[in-house]
């Protein structure tokens, strides 16, 4: 689905990625893990063209990512960030349906899709009338998830989607997202600093440190054959891991 090939990238003279290569497989959920500054969120923003690599090539859907494909790729990608990124001047409903309305969907299609998504994300429909400021943090993230899913994207990019929420809501939403991923059969890339969350939601884990891949594979591989002491430390930093 997505290949990073020999990517070079840096911020303000500071080199982050040097000859970076990664293959993200379609139809599977991949978690990018690492501490802050490891470059995991940067990879998502490179996929969306929010940042441009200094050298190398990003291939999306078999073709190189070029400027003229960006708008199309963005519309076929659902992107969810930690703060939700809901526009404060639009109602929850208008946030969710913004792109559908601009893509010429008719009202009946829109209503139908909203009902599906509300059920999927377990959000009460009448909350959609509210402005984002009148919703709780958990409700806002559900609305933001609905917006990411509205156009039924092939690819879902989730950048620490639940880390701003309190633990109860976070667990609830993690469970729901897991069910949803299983149901939708989409390509998902999840960015997380939480090993438990990554292991719970993703089939394939990638551990990054300062722009380099330290280890990748299923969680069992990490647990049974940690590649470096850093991997052991990173795993040990989390508690209550699944067997």
């Amino acid at each position, binding site marked *: 689905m997505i290949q990073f090939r020999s990517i070079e990238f840096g911020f303000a003279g500071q080199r982050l990625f040097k000859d970076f290569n990664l293959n993200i497989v379609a139809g599977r959920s991949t978690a990018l893990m690492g501490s802050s500054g490891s470059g995991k969120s940067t990879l998502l*923003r490179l996929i969306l063209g*929010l940042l441009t690599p200094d050298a190398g090539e990003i291939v999306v859907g078999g073709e190189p990512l070029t400027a003229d494909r960006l708008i199309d790729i963005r519309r076929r990608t659902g992107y969810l960030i930690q703060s939700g990124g809901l526009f404060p001047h639009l109602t929850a409903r208008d946030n969710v349906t*913004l792109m559908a309305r601009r893509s010429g969907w008719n009202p009946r299609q829109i209503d139908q899709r909203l009902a599906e998504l509300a059920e999927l994300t377990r959000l009460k429909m009448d909350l959609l009338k509210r402005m984002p400021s009148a919703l709780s943090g958990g409700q806002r993230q559900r609305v933001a998830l609905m917006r990411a899913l509205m156009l039924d994207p092939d690819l879902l990019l989730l950048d620490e989607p639940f880390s701003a929420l309190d633990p109860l809501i976070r667990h609830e939403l993690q469970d729901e997202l897991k069910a949803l991923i299983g149901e939708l059969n989409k390509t998902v890339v999840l960015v997380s600093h939480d090993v438990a969350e990554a292991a719970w939601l993703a089939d394939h884990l990638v551990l990054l440190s300062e722009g380099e891949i330290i280890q990748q594979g299923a969680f069992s591989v990490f647990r049974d054959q940690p590649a470096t002491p850093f991997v052991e430390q990173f795993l040990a930093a989390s508690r209550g891991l699944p067997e």
Partner: protein
Amino acid sequence: MSGLLFRFVGLIAAGLIFTATATAGKNSSTPVVVGSKNFTESVLLGELATQLLIARGIPAVHREALGGSRILWNALQRGDIDVYPEYSGTLRFELLANVVEATTAPLDKLLSGEGIAALPPFGFANNYAMGMAEPRAEGLHITRVSDLLRHAGLKIGVSNEFLHRADGWPGLKAAYQLPQLATGLDHDLAYRGLVEGDLDVIDLYTTDAEISYYNLRVLVDDRSYFPDYHALLLYRANWAADRPEVVGLLAALSGQLSEVDISRLNSLQKLDKQPAKEVAAQFLENRLKLAPADVRPQSNLRKELWITTSQQLFMVGVSMFAALLLALPLGVLAAKKPAIGRLILGLTGAVQTIPSLALLVFMIPLLGIGTLPAIVALFFYSLLPILRNTEAGLSGISHELQETAVALGLSAWARLWQIELPLASRTILAGIKTAAVINIGTATLGALIGAGGYGQPILAGIRLDDTGLILQGAIPAVLMAFVVQGLFSMVEKKLPASS
């Protein structure tokens, strides 16, 4: 509301017609436009010329109290006015000061070089002089200008024009080696300063009615610094070629006014509060046996308020609208391209620092006098607040929301209209509100160049020492600013909170 709109359209139409007739070839049906400066005597002389022509069957209008010498001179040369009263000293030492032999050559010769001609003088000279309150002068034993040398601590206040004129304060200070510094203020206010003891010495016009009224001592110009200022009517030479009959009629005023006459007429206006129109009509009736013109006040307070309000609204409305059309897109550009933005903001900031009166005067050689130059000046003043707030509002949107809008797949245009402008709208509106309030205040200065508005009663009130008249302009101007501010606040509440 639609009634208001109709009046506006009417005003625009009237403006266009005025411009059209002003530029069309002069024929006997085109009204003669008489101008006058913003002080009592000049308004009276302008009124005499206007009423004389009307009484002789020549259509004439008086654009009274337009401002200072430079404004009138430029307006005459441009053809915005045809005739106005000027003083020989002002011509020699101020308006034509950079012409060779300005102080010695015959005046007619000097003027013809500029395409201007003058009628023989009215008959009186209104010279500059320095004056003091009698008791104060007596106490300090001051009778001559050179006596001022002995009292370096005296507070001297002079009219703004005098402060800067070549034949005014700078020359006087040099000629007498005066140690004092002078401050500039409005001439009519200077008398109050003198009477109330805030000032010791002011400049005078020797025909001012206040000299005897306030019992002032006119200091002897013992080094003969001040030249003579004979009052005369100026007109454009090429205009006179088309209207020789008008020039012939105006010549009837030459030699008709002595110093005693003009002081009495000034006194009737300033001290007895008689309108210039009535004073002029009485004089023409007595001296030239002209049938008295109908000078009863033709308008009442309500009508005058309506006229000044619509003039003010027209100036503010058109200049604000034009400023919005330019400043909003420029503000967007400045936010999107910070390098260009710094340049744009720097330029508009520089325009903002030009004093409003100076900007108005700069406009005259290009655009003449009246509503148009005032609107252009107001337009420039309204740009910066709108531009700066548009830029700030857009740049202030959180990086996260800007990126989210991009990531959703919105085009740049859709992002601007659907996301960025709505999020910046409160800040932008605040800029528009600031611009509007500044605009309303500055628009009152438009009266100095004949644009009317609330400034007209304010300036007339200052000139005639009439508080009621000042308030007739000041109160509505303040109310208009309040109403505008209130309307904006109402709209603001309906806008989304900024991010």
